[in-house]
C-alpha cells in the first residue's frame, strides 16, 4: 500500500525550474532512496514534502488523501544541514522541538528518556550544545527527528559526520524504525548505504525524475552483460573458443587459477558463453556481474546529461 505519493510536482523559482513533473510513490514500511546529483532538486522535493514550501502544481498525498498542514506532526525530518540552538541545554532543546511536533510535555519527556537511555547519552541532558562534539550533536539531532514517532521519516544524508561505529548504530535504528512500520525516505550520495538499506529508489537529475524502481530491478536493467569467470586451463584456448561478439575486459593469471571478465556485446544470456567454455577449461565459478548502484548512478546521469546537452 502506498503511504506517500507525489504526483506531477512542479516548482519554479523565478526562471529556474527546480522540479518538473516529478512523481514518486513510497510504499508503507519501506525505505525509499531519493538520489541525484547536487542541485538536481532533491532538497526542493523534500521541502515540499515537509510543507516548508508549496509546489506550483501537482499533488502531495498521504495515505491517498491530500496532505494537510496538520500532517506535519506525522513526519520526522532530518535536514542535511543540521542545527541546534548552541546556547540551549540539550534536554530543554529536545523537549522544545518535540513539543513543537505536537507532543505533550509529559509524552515528550517519556519518549526522550527512552531514546537518551538507548543511545546512552542521559548524562548530556544538562549540557549545552556548544559543549558537545559534532558527532554527539548529530545523535541529539537524530533523536529530535524520531522522538514523536513519525510515520514518515525523511533523512537527508543522515550518516554525514558519524564515525563508522555510530553509522552502524544509526543504520540499525533506521532499520528498526522501518520494522516498526515507519515509512522512510532516504536521500544520500553514499551509494553503498543505498544498496544496504533501500528497497526502492528514484533518481532525480536536472529537475526531472530519470530513473525509478525497486533496487534489484534497477540494477538488473542496467547490467551490461559482463561475466566474471574463474577457471583452470589455457588462456589461448579460451580466447580461441570465443567469437567476435565477446570482448575480454580483463584477464588475470595466478597459481591458484585464472579469472576473466568478459562482456557479451550482443547481450546473449550466460548459458551460451558457458557452453562454449566448458570444453576448453575447467570452470570453478561463473558470475554475471550486477552493477553497483554507484555504477548505475554514474552511467544514467552521464548518459542523460550527454543527451540533454545535444542540440
Amino acid at each position: 500500500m502506498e503511504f506517500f505519493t507525489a504526483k506531477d510536482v512542479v516548482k519554479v523559482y523565478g526562471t529556474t525550474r527546480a522540479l518538473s513533473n516529478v512523481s514518486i510513490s513510497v510504499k508503507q514500511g519501506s525505505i525509499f532512496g531519493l538520489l541525484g546529483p547536487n542541485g538536481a532538486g532533491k532538497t526542493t522535493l523534500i521541502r515540499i514534502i515537509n510543507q516548508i514550501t508549496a509546489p506550483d502544481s501537482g499533488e502531495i498525498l498521504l495515505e491517498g488523501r491530500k496532505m494537510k498542514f496538520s500532517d506535519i506532526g506525522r513526519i520526522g525530518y532530518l535536514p542535511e544541514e543540521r542545527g541546534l540552538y548552541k546556547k540551549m541545554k540539550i534536554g530543554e532543546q529536545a523537549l522544545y522541538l518535540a513539543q513543537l511536533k505536537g507532543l505533550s510535555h509529559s509524552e515528550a519527556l517519556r519518549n526522550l528518556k527512552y531514546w537518551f537511555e538507548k543511545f546512552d547519552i542521559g548524562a548530556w541532558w544538562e549540557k549545552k550544545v556548544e559543549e558537545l562534539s559534532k558527532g554527539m550533536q548529530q545523535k541529539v539531532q537524530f533523536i529530535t527527528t524520531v522522538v514523536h514517532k513519525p510515520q514518515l521519516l525523511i533523512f537527508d544524508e543522515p550518516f554525514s559526520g558519524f564515525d563508522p561505529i555510530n553509522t552502524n548504530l544509526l543504520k540499525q535504528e533506521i532499520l528498526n524504525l522501518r520494522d516498526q512500520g515507519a515509512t522512510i525516505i532516504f536521500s544520500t550520495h553514499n551509494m553503498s548505504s543505498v544498496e544496504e538499506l533501500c528497497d526502492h529508489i528514484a533518481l532525480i537529475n536536472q529537475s526531472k525524475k530519470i530513473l525509478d524502481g525497486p533496487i534489484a530491478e534497477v540494477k538488473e536493467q542496467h547490467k551490461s552483460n559482463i561475466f566474471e569467470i574463474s577457471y583452470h586451463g589455457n588462456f589461448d584456448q579460451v580466447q580461441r573458443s570465443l567469437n567476435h561478439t565477446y570482448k575480454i575486459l580483463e584477464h588475470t593469471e595466478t597459481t591458484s587459477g585464472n579469472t576473466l571478465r568478459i562482456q557479451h556485446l550482443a547481450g546473449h544470456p550466460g548459458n551460451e558463453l558457458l557452453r562454449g567454455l566448458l570444453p576448453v577449461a575447467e570452470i570453478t565459478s561463473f558470475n554475471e556481474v550486477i552493477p553497483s548502484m554507484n555504477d548505475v548512478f554514474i552511467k544514467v546521469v552521464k548518459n542523460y546529461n550527454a543527451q540533454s546537452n545535444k542540440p
Partner: protein
Amino acid sequence: MNKSFLILKREYLTRVTKKSFLVTTLLVPIFMGAIMIVPAWLATRDDKQERTIAVYDESSLFLDQLNQEGYTKYHFVEREKYLTLKENLAGSEYYALLYIPENIYTTSSAQLTSPKQIPFELTEQIERKLSQVIETDKRQKVISESGVPDLEAKLAATRTRVSVNTLKVTETGEEKKSSSMVAFGASYIMGFLIYFFVFMYGAMVMRSVMEEKKSRIVEVIISSVKPFQLMFGKIVGTALVGLTQVVIWIVLGGVIIGVLQGFMTPEATQEMGQNLMQSQPGIAQQTANVEPNQIAEVLEMIGNLNLPLILFSFVFYFLGGYLLYSSLMGAVGAAVDNEEDTQQLVFPVTFPLILSIILLFPIAKNPEGSIAFWASVIPFTSPVCMLARIPYGIPAWELLLSMFLLTLTTIGAIWVAARIYRTGILMYGKKVTLKELFKWLTYKS
C-alpha cells in the same frame, strides 16, 4: 497558535534568564542617569586648582578690590616686576599675568597672559570681578553727583524679575496652567523612549532570526510550524521581554525615588541648597529665584497634561512602531547570511526612525507646523513624532488619521516581512539585493 505560544515562551525565557538581560536592565538606567547627571555634577564642581595671578594695575582702581576669589589668588606687582615677568612668565611662580591699563575705565578691556591655556571659567571670573568693581565705582559717582537721598536703596528696589505663566484654554473654556517647558520635556522624553525601545527590541528580533538561520535550526523548526507562527512567536516574545524590562525599571525607579525621599527630609534639602549657594555665588542668584511653590506648580502642570490620552497613545504607538520595525528587521535578519551583510539592509529600514529623532527639534519649535504634521502622520516617523506632539495638544482627526495609517502600514509591513522571511531563512550563500527581495514577494508559500 499553541505552537506560537511554545515559541513565544522559549524566546521569552531564554532572553530573560540570560545574564546579559539582568546586566542591561540594571545598567541602562544607571547609564542614562549618568548621562544626565554627570555633566551637571561636573559643572557644579569647583575648580580646585590653586592659581596665583600677578596683577599689574596701571589704573590703581583695583588695589583693595582684588585679593582672593575661591582658589584664585591675586598678587599686585610693580612696573619693573611686570616687565621682567612679561619676559619670563613660564619660569615664575605665577600662573598668569593680568595687565590692567590706565584707561580701563573707558576702554573696558584688560589683558591676561599665561603660558598655559587659560580655562574659560577663570577668564569669566576675572571679567565679572573687574566689571563689578568698575560698575560699583561708576554707580557711587553717579549717586554722589545726583544728591538724591537713599538712591542706592531705591535703585536696588527697581530690580524686577517677571515670569510668564502660560495658560491653555481648553475647548470648554476652562483655563489650565501649562508650561511649554513641561510639554517639551514630556514630548522629548516620550519620543526618545519610543525610539529607544523600537530600536533595541527590533534589533533583538533581527539577531534572533539571524541566529536561527545561521545555526540552521530554522529548517527543523519550520518543518514543525509555519514560518509565520515562528515569526509571530518571536516578535511577541521579544515584546514581552521589553515589557518585563520596563516593569522592572518602573519598580526600580519607584524604589529609588522612595529611598531618596526617605533621606531627603525638607531640612536636608534646604541644607544642601545652602551649601550649593555658598559654594557657587553665580548659582545662588538663580536658585534664590526658585520659589518653594514652583515645584508644586510643575507638578500641577504635569497633572494638567492629558495623562490618560498620553498613556494610551504611548502604548499604541509603542506597539505599532515596534511591530512595524521589528517585523521589517526580522525580514532583514532572514534575508542575510551574516552580520556584516546586515548593515546595508538595516540602514534603509531604520533611517526613518533616526530621522524622526532629528525631527523632534523642529516639532518642539512649532508643534503645529507642517513638518510636525507630516512627520506625525506618515507611519514610519509617526510613532516617535506623534507622541512628541501629543503633550502640546492635538486635533482628534490628526491623531485618528495617524493611528489609522500606522495600523494599515504595520499590517502591510507584516505581510511583506512574512514573505521575505519565509523565503529568506532557507536561502544561503546569496547576497540579496532589493530587487531579489521584491521577487520573493511573489513566491507561493
